[in-house]
């Protein structure tokens, strides 16, 4: 009986570990998909409302639809130097973002608001395309890795249990 309970506990814990790892891996894809939508909506807002970048970013980042980007919130405390703050925050996200993601976000913020409406449309859409490229190449791999993590979790649990018995 103890052996069965022990086996179940081992399998349960390794499976949980596997799920945790796979969720962490998939988190980046969720964020990238959110960034893709975010760039599009920033462009729409610029064209539609012509509000300042600070107002647009505050409105979007604080909204529930972009909760994956909530790590950017603290960059919006100072109305004057917020672009530098946002870039700093992006570059600190080593766990959530890959270098290429950080580069795209940094480029996006650096050129944000620096041109007229047409220029901003082109800029936002080009950043959106870059995110799409990253998603295309990384999404499949990431999903495979996530599945592998899930399987590994279960299998390693079973393996350890057999080994212990």
């Amino acid at each position: 009986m103890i052996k069965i309970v022990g086996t179940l506990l081992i399998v349960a814990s390794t499976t949980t570990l596997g799920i945790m790892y796979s969720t962490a891996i998939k988190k980046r894809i969720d964020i990238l998909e959110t960034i893709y939508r975010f760039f599009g909506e920033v462009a729409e807002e610029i064209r539609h409302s012509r509000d300042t970048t600070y107002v647009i970013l505050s409105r979007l980042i604080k909204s529930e639809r972009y909760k994956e980007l909530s790590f950017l919130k603290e960059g919006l405390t100072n109305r004057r130097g917020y672009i530098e703050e946002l870039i700093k925050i992006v570059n600190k996200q080593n766990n959530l973002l890959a270098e290429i993601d950080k580069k795209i976000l940094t480029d996006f913020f650096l050129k944000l608001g620096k041109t007229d409406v047409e220029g901003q449309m082109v800029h936002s859409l080009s950043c959106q395309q870059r995110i799409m490229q990253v998603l295309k190449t990384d999404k499949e791999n990431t999903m495979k890795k996530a599945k592998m993590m899930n399987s590994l979790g279960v299998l390693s649990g079973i393996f350890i249990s057999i080994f212990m018995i």
Partner: protein
Amino acid sequence: MQRRKNLKFAGVLSVLPERVAKTLEALDGKIIENIHEVRLRANKPLTLTIVNGNYFIAEGGLPAFNCEKPIIISDEELNEIFSKICEYSFYTYQDDIANGFVTMQNGNRVGIAGTAVLENGSRIVSFKNINSLNIRISREVKGAANEIINEILTEDSKEILGALVISPPKFGKTTILRDLARQLSIKGKRVALIDERNELAAVCEGMPQNDVGKLTDILTGIPKDKGILYALRNLSPEVIICDEIGGSAEIDGVIYALNAGVPVIASAHSGSYEELLKRPGFLYLLNSGAIKKVFVINSKSGIGKISEVIEVGKEND
């Protein structure tokens, strides 16, 4: 009022480099109150226009015309100041920039000098290589329209007369119109304020930063001629107020409003009534009957003081 003035000055300080902001912040309150303009030119000394004189200032010093080590603004600093003025969002201000000015959140107006970018060889679409910025500090003076308010209302205060306030630049026309909107609103009149350059109400994120009255509807950023028509159609005002008319479309708009039964109170640049009559557009406007009174402000009367009230059509009486 002092607090509001200080807020407007603080708005200027917030876009200046720290060393400059610290120097200006340390000035005596009376000096600050009299600063009308802060002029910034690339690689040249910062200039303060105090009342009507121009002064330089050294770091940590006092304004003086003969200043040994005046604060020099570098071109990088000027670009950064301009970015801050535009809140890092040039597209938001692209139409204003094309017209050579930007109105800051607190109503301060920034004139731009640089190289014009033309489209089709004639239409200015932007300015590049900006080499000079003139920050004009907005003034909100409650009571500025006291001399005018009773002149434009009929004895029973039921009707408002169309009026024009004229003066050379910097004589307080905008300040008078702003207070007029507030006072007419207090008297229970529905006012439509056509604030093309956002100088009258200084609307920031939908909220007016200046007190223009509780019965005042504000149309910001809309060309005056279109604003007048829009207000007539949608806001049913009892009076329309707009600043600095001059173009033929704007004059036509004022006449259209008269024919719709709504008086317009506006301002225009002119040194005197005689000069005004030399401009065909205004001659046409005065002959139309849309303007019943012209208020003249000039150097004789001083800033914000009415020198002459002319009843149109009775000039020779």
